[in-house]
């Protein structure tokens, strides 16, 4: 008999009862994890990776049923746990770190309370001893001033800090298995790196087995020894990182690897069969957009008469040439979205000039710009493809809006024809035009958003993180589509993103923003290969660095 692994998930099948009937979610899932190992579970949304992890601690809720298979944790059978077993296991033997650290902590309980709850629940300390132990735990997760943090409430801490607290909680009772469910989602790249490094370090130090669940193949490759790839509730491939990257067997694994942008990949590499793009567009020196000394101040009302101002954008200047794609990168809160909204004329500026196509549109109020004949020349593709579509409007309704209001086309036939044309341009099945947004996939919704933006033949399109909500394989296709459209329609792009790899392969020039200012700009290759600014360097440094060649 083969020696059992520390954690052995064997042929696990699980289904959910939903309003649309019983839905199988896991199908014959098997994976093993040994002591001291970090196992990566990789897959796109809906692959069942989180459900697998949750089933270890029976966290899937009442609607789920394990229909077959077993979970064996060091001799304990967890697929049908008794409540007393669960009580002993949860938090003490097996801990979990959830995706969103801010919402993982109870907003009205202090860090001290959280740690104390945890410690006393598992009899790790007395009420009195909890304080000392808590401080030690916070120090362990490298929180510099643990005394202050101990008294803090979650809203007073940054995302990264919260995640450290969550890790401290997870490690409070010295568990033997740590499940990290997308532990860095929502965190900035620099923080991402710090958190992942911390997890790895602590796991090694305390001999904790880690199950890392992520959609980011790059991250999994960097931190894990073995990887399990899941798709649609099934394990499609598993093995060592090296084996997986060097000789992927399953088509899905291949697709995933290809679609993950790396520091070397080109746009065409992202998909097995890239779109044919006639790269005929010539970037001229003619500037379609020139932004000079742009400022944005927000009034934050505090108290009755007192108004505090928040300086979101501090004197930013840049330009975009006709046909060019300029990337705007920075971490959350750096002001990049504010700039995109001001340029798109959805928000007023506080000071400065926006010269578009030779005209200063900065002085026109956003609410008056609707009536300007330049409205159709600047269009924006929004970050969240679901949120940017009116849930009550069909695909047709959504695409036809700008045609009706900006192009003033009223002939029904003409409208219909134009919509179908646009669908074709963005590779959207014409049969879908009667559907409502919630009946579409993420990629389809993104295409609708793009079709709507290009419907009125704009000159400048602002792409505000157009792919951040999409799975990598879909992202790859959408990026190629955008590139194709740029060439076909002669568009200029302002591409806002936090993903440096994507910016590198998609843009010609890049602007790096930090705290409302542009700290570095230039050709992508120059900036990425030889960053001069410290911040840019840190940013680049934080991207998971892996390449097949390095293995």
């Amino acid at each position, binding site marked *: 008999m083969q020696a059992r692994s520390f954690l052995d998930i064997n042929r696990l099948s699980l289904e959910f009862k*939903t*309003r*649309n009937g019983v839905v199988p979610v896991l199908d014959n899932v098997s994976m093993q994890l040994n002591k001291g190992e970090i196992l990566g579970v990789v897959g796109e949304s809906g692959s069942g990776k989180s459900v697998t992890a949750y089933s270890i601690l029976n966290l899937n809720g009442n*609607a789920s049923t394990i229909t077959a298979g077993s979970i064996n944790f060091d001799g304990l059978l967890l697929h049908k746990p008794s409540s007393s077993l669960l009580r002993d296991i949860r938090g003490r033997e097996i801990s979990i770190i959830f995706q969103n650290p801010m919402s993982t902590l109870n907003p009205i309980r202090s860090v001290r309370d959280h740690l104390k709850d945890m410690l006393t629940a598992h009899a790790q300390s007395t009420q009195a001893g909890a304080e000392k132990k808590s401080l030690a735990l916070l120090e362990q997760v490298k929180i510099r001033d643990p005394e202050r943090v101990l008294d803090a409430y979650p809203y007073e801490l940054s995302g990264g800090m919260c995640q450290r607290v969550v890790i401290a909680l997870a490690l409070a009772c010295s568990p033997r298995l740590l499940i990290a469910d997308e532990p860095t989602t929502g965190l900035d790249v620099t923080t991402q790196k710090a958190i992942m490094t911390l997890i790895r370090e602590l796991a090694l130090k305390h001999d904790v087995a880690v199950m890392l669940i992520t959609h980011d193949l790059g991250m999994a490759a960097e931190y894990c020894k073995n990887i399990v790839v899941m798709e649609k509730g099934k394990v499609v491939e598993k093995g060592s990182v090296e084996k997986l990257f060097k000789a992927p067997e399953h088509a899905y694994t291949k697709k995933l690897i290809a679609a993950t942008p790396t520091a070397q990949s080109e746009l065409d590499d992202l998909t097995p069969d890239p779109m044919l793009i006639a790269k005929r567009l010539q970037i001229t020196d003619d500037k379609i957009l020139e932004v000079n000394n742009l400022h944005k101040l927000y009034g934050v009302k505090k108290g009755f008469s007192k108004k505090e101002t928040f300086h979101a954008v501090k004197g930013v200047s840049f330009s975009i040439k006709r046909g060019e794609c300029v990337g705007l990168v920075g971490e959350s809160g750096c002001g990049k979205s504010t700039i995109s*909204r001001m340029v*798109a*004329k*959805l928000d007023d500026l506080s000071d400065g000039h926006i010269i578009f196509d030779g005209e200063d549109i900065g002085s026109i109020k956003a*609410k008056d710009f*609707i*009536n300007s004949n330049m*409205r*159709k020349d*600047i*269009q*924006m593709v*929004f*970050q*969240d493809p679901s*949120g*940017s*579509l*009116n*849930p*009550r*409007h069909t695909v047709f309704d*959504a695409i036809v*809006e*700008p045609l*009706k*209001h*900006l192009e003033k086309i009223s002939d029904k036939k003409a409208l219909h024809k134009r919509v179908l044309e646009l669908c074709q341009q963005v590779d959207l099945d014409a049969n879908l035009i009667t559907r*409502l947004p*919630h*009946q579409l996939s993420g990629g389809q919704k993104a295409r609708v*958003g793009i079709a*709507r933006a290009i419907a009125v033949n704009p000159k400048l399109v602002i792409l505000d993180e157009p792919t951040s909500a999409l799975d990598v394989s879909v992202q790859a296709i959408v990026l190629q589509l955008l590139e194709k459209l740029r060439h076909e329609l002669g568009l200029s792009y302002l591409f806002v993103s936090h993903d440096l790899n994507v910016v590198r392969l998609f843009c010609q020039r890049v602007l790096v923003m930090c705290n409302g200012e542009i700290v570095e700009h230039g050709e992508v290759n120059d900036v990425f290969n030889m960053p001069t600014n410290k911040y840019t360097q840190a940013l680049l440094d934080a991207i998971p660095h892996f390449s097949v060649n390095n293995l």
Partner: protein
Amino acid sequence: MKNWFRHTIYIFSENPVSIFAVILFLLYVTMALVGHWLVPYDPYLTNTDIALQPPSVSHWFGTDHLGRDVFSRVVIATRMDLGIAFSAVALSALVGCTLGSLAGYFGGWADQIIGRFTDIVMAFPLFVLAMGLVAAMGNTVENIIYATALINIPFYIRVSRSEVSVRRNLPYVQAALQSGNSHFRALAMHIFPNTLPPLMVQLSLNSGWAILNAAGLSFIGLGVKPPEAEWGIMVAEGANYMISGEWWLVLFPGLVLMMAVFCFNLLGDSLRDIVDPLRRT
């Protein structure tokens, strides 16, 4: 649409109580529409010879102090009560949603003024305000409707204001604006329809409340004019006969009234379950 329908079916199948409420609602609407032709007796015809008779085969719900058939009166009162409830609620929804949407969308001084108005009305004890209005304007059906509508307006303002203000910065509204929609158009065509579901909940709950409100006014003596049949006034008058043993005068109208309000409340609850994404599993 199909999906929505399926979701609705799901909610109902999870919730047998809701099915019951829907059936009841349809029954009441039918009663309001055709009740006048179905009743066995002229609901206004008095006959003092048979006054205060207990329920029997010929008079299912007994007769009142003037010998009128209680069953017939209860049935025809449906139109009056639902009429008051629906008109009042429709009126307050119309005014409240308009004001609330404007306040929520444009903010600024309009929001301030509308907000203060809401605060002031809410600071009144609402039932007493309704009483005062009806007392001041006279107790006609129209005035009962106006008064009931007025005290409900703040709730619609609040709901639609908050619903609109959370939506006004959503990407799809921004998208609508950059697609050339004017602000009014974006508000009317893009935001407002999406605020309807939570409003429907309010609408349904308020309909029940409007009936209770009218009943309360009747109890004080400010209800509809005799000889009009209305549940509240029948209960209020019947209450005087409870101690003396003519229980049917209060019980039947009371039950019918209660079931109607019950039905609206349950419907509102079910609607909330349907539209509230938080409850969607």
